[in-house]
């Protein structure tokens, strides 16, 4: 695989594609592999969705690399950012889940996983995991729960959240459609599962149109009390 390097010029700024002058190569431990994740919490369900494109620079490494990982029967995590850190982080979370199960004789709840992930991420405060995490699942009462994180572990519970490369494009759309923001005199209807899934598909189709790092296919994980259902939907491949 390629060494992740960044090309710096005299003034310390990154250089353009057609730059031909002197360059200084520096090793960077991080690289950006793209991808977008999204989670929505409903009354009795949660949806975690991600695209499946893995890119680096101007290339696509894989069209089938989903970013949703199943943690327990009631929790799914979506991780985007640097793929190496995503893999390591999910392995660490799986190991910690097993340890908890062995010492406490029960599965971790979504809220507990979120709190644990926050401390795992903060443990690397000075050399962060370059991962944007969103946890989706059911809380102890069976209601949908979404927890969104930043790379160093700051987190909060939300109703919906988009993370990753196209997050800035998706979040305002979700604010309007699910949060009814900036709409006057509109009835606040609760979100049912079919409408939520359709909204997620539409939103990712929009993201694939305008974000180069998002596309190829969409993987949707729907978490209900009956388990986790997975659905794959094709997206633009260009």
């Amino acid at each position, binding site marked *: 695989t390629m060494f992740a390097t960044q090309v710096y010029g005299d003034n*310390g700024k990154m250089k353009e594609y057609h730059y031909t002058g002197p360059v200084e190569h520096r090793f960077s431990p991080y690289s950006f592999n793209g991808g977008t994740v999204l989670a929505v919490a409903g009354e009795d369900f949660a949806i975690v969705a991600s695209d499946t494109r893995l890119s680096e620079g101007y290339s696509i490494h894989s069209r089938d690399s989903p970013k949703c990982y199943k943690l327990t029967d009631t929790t799914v995590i979506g991780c985007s*950012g640097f793929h190496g850190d995503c893999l390591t982080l999910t392995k660490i979370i799986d190991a910690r889940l097993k340890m908890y199960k062995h010492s406490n004789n029960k599965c971790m709840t979504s809220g507990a996983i979120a709190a644990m992930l926050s401390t795992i991420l903060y*443990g*690397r405060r000075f050399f962060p995991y370059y991962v944007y995490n969103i946890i989706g699942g059911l809380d102890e009462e069976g209601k949908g729960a979404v927890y969104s994180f930043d790379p*160093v572990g*700051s987190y909060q519970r939300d109703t919906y959240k988009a993370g990753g490369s196209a997050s800035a494009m998706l979040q305002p759309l979700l604010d309007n459609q699910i949060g009814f923001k900036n709409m006057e005199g509109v009835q606040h209807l609760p979100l049912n599962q079919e409408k939520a899934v359709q909204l997620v598909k539409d939103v990712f189709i929009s993201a694939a149109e305008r974000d180069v790092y998002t596309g190829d296919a969409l993987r949707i994980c729907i978490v209900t009390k009956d388990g986790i259902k997975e659905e794959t939907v094709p997206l633009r491949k260009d």
Partner: protein
Amino acid sequence: MALSSVLQSESADFSFNNDRSFSFGCRFGQTNLGFGAAPGDRLNFAIKASLGPDDKDGPERKIEFLHGTTTLAFKCWINFSVAERNHQRTASKATNFSSQEQLALLNQPAIPFVIIPQFQHGVIVAVDSRATAGAYIASQTVKKVIEINPYLLGTMAGGAADCSFWERLLARQCRVYELRNKERISVAAASKLLANMVYQYKGMGLSMGTMVCGWDKRGPGLYYVDSEGNRVCGDLFAVGSGSMYAYGVVDSGLRQDLSVEEACELGRRAIYQATYRDAYSGGQVNLYHVHSEGWTRVSQEDVLKLHHQYQEPKK
């Protein structure tokens, strides 16, 4: 002193492990920074050995910051309607007294001797709720007041993860103190614990500006603690990018004889005005009141609603 015994029992180790390997492009060493946790509960931080100047782009920039923030807290004098009633009451009647007054009266002969409580402040805490990552608004619903325990509050400004992590650790230390000493921790001691915890990481890039507010046996307490090592006691603080705007409003409206509702409204207005002018503050205004029984959540209001409330009458 109870505080020093707490610190002695945990080893504060300031030494760095210097045997990190610097082989080019390979492992980055792990440093064991024993800071002040109970033994067997060490915090290990892996340090990225910077092989070049600091990488401004990449994850550093994308971390959520609460630099865009306005948080403010001030001590206020509370009008005791009990005191007013005492003025008017007749010689022999005993109405609702606070326990202090009751005690004083019992020690007196039949002369009705009334002690009006002079030093009964409270602390009003008001914060906004916006978190930004660069120019992107990561969230408009962040809880910037951390409920450490039923009588201590901590506010958040600076790095979101830094504030919530260290204040959560502070909550744990306060609880340990309570269990060890069978009494509640004072605000001064709690703020000192926090200040000492982060001082060990001074210069390493933590960003935290917090106010520890509470009520202890000395009365109301308000301390400002930050990641640079400052710890100051005071009557009024505003922290964050919108703090200057908040100071202007609070300084002009603060009086000795504010009632609780007026003080809350002053705090609310100050945060609203700060969100109005500061691009990095916004969302909702969360208001708390700390009094002798602990803290109470007074209100949470959206800034847009406050805007209509304050601006409409002018038209």
